[in-house]
């Protein structure tokens, strides 16, 4: 335990050191960069609202990814699942007049379409032995093309110049803004996201299927020999992970934008990979980790304005460095663990 904490600290220090070095190259101090990031993300209620909105997306996607990562899978479909969920939610919202049935339909649309995405990936994984990264990547692109097609050919808003659909009926706006300012993006799905993280943690740590997911992630052959159906576990993990990403559709469409906009996503699904890795696949740690990355995401445009040489893409470097560090760390831990296991046997 002590060694883990030590390694964790050291790797964070190395990461911060590298990033600071890049800051100095660009004639900035790291403190100033941090100050800008914080000032433009949490100081004002308006900014905080955007940050919490980002965090909501990240929590849903990352909680789902934790499930899949713990099963030893690495799907990168959260981005496509989120887009698909938002698209289907707005299409249902635009196609049906509000009624008891359509309320259920609009809530289900995002989750079901996202689940379908996840099940396709799991089908390829279990039946065709195709790597989940490849299939989910291809599906991401297909979803993007599909969304472009649906918006440009069928649902383009008549009042807007941007590629986006019309606005769904006000009775579908289920999730009220948290802050009572106009157009505040953060809405009550934020609390739902925190609940989702806790529920995911409970599922993984305290239930039988959760245990089986972790067992498969540790060793497929041991899990299979002890009678766990690996294919079933993969399907559960990928399916649940897709459903969680699908909740993003509630946040985006039913809580904030109320319409599907092409390019609405700031790569939430990909950023969530970093969130989950930094949280070491622990859904509870996803909550602070999401906040951290949401601050980076919200603060990034501030870097464009307030510094001479650092652009918003600097945040991508920070992400990449963090992911690499945590991967190396995880690998070292696994290696030392398997070493001590062989020694004691």
């Amino acid at each position, binding site marked *: 335990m002590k060694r883990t904490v030590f390694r964790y600290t050291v790797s964070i220090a190395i990461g911060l050191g590298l990033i600071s070095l890049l800051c100095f190259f660009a004639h900035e101090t790291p403190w100033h960069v941090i100050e800008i990031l914080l000032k433009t993300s949490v100081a004002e209620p308006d900014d905080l609202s955007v940050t919490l909105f980002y965090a909501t997306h990240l929590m849903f996607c990352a909680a789902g990814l934790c499930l899949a990562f713990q099963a030893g899978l690495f799907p990168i479909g959260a981005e496509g699942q989120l887009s698909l969920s938002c698209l289907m939610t707005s299409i249902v919202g635009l196609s049906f007049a509000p009624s008891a049935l359509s309320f259920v339909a609009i809530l289900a649309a995002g989750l079901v379409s996202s689940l379908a995405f996840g099940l396709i990936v799991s089908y390829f994984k279990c039946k065709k*032995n195709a*790597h989940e990264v*490849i*299939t989910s990547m291809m599906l991401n692109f*297909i979803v993007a093309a599909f969304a472009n097609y649906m918006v440009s050919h069928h649902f383009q808003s008549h009042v807007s110049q941007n590629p986006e659909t019309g606005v769904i009926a006000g009775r579908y706006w289920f999730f009220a803004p948290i802050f009572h300012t106009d157009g505040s993006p953060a809405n009550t799905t934020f609390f739902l996201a925190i609940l989702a993280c806790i529920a995911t943690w409970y599922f993984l740590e305290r239930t039988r299927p959760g245990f089986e997911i972790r067992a498969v992630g540790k060793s497929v052959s041991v899990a299979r020999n002890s009678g766990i159906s690996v294919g079933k576990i993969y399907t559960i993990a990928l399916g649940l992970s897709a459903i969680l990403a699908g909740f993003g559709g509630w946040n985006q469409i039913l809580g904030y934008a109320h319409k599907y906009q092409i390019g609405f996503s700031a790569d939430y699904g990909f950023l969530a990979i970093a969130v989950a890795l930094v949280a070491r696949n622990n859904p509870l740690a996803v909550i602070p980790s999401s906040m951290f990355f949401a601050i980076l995401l919200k603060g990034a445009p501030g870097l464009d304005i307030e510094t001479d040489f650092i652009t918003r*893409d600097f945040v*991508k470097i920070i992400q990449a460095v963090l*992911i690499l560090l945590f*991967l190396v760390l995880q690998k070292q831990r696994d290696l030392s663990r398997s070493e001590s296991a062989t020694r004691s046997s």
Partner: protein
Amino acid sequence: MIFDFCMSVARISLPLALAALAGFWSEKSGTPQVGLEGFLLLGALSGATFANVFGALAPAFAVTLVVGALAGAFFFMFSEKLKLDAILVGLVLNLLVAGTAPYVTKLLFGSTGSTPFLPPQLHWVVFPYIWLGIVFFGGLFIFNQTGFGVLVRFAGEKPVAIASAGYSLAQVRLVCLMLCGAIAGSGGFLLSTYLASSYSPMMSAGRGFIALAALIFARWRWTQTFLMAVLFGFFEALEIYLQGLSSPLPVQFFQAIPYVATLIILLFNRKWRAQSVLS
């Protein structure tokens, strides 16, 4: 008209084919390669930057090959030396290049994300195709006729056999990754100096993934990979051509073709085995 269209297919296929052939070396030697997008982008950035610095294309091309090979070695360090999952390393590489490119252009040229335009006389007309020919036929020869080609196959299909034959698996993979980086980098170079005349942000626009799709669709065979890349280039050219016309089929249909095709091939390919170590 038809000639123009063929020329545009050839032009668009160049970076695709180079990236796909680059991915071939990496994947054949047992390193799954999803970082082609990053290599392309890096090549494009380095090409445009050094062409500006030197005021000539030839030295910029040489430097870009070196930069690409170094990026391949960087990849090797994480995937082979530190034993990280190569797929993750590839994703991180994409992210790292996407983040570093604006940083570099900002420091060097003071613009967010793009390089200044190259003067019109800095434009190769024939050499890109000669280079593609060199890469294609050179690779064909090396892979089928030389001992190194055999080693590459072994690295991908039976890594243990390499060590027992007295060669180093790591060395073979290092050479393959550097080859991959250099070739994909040259594809990026053509992207920013031949297809365009400057580097612009994210100009690879998913080509690395289309190249990967071509590689999978061709089931990791050299000539077929090349042909698939040209086929996907054809679809892209068609898509651009149709954007000017009112076509019965939506352009998004063509955008999705490479990806749908890949899924279909995975669906019908009962024996999905990239290389035995990849799965």
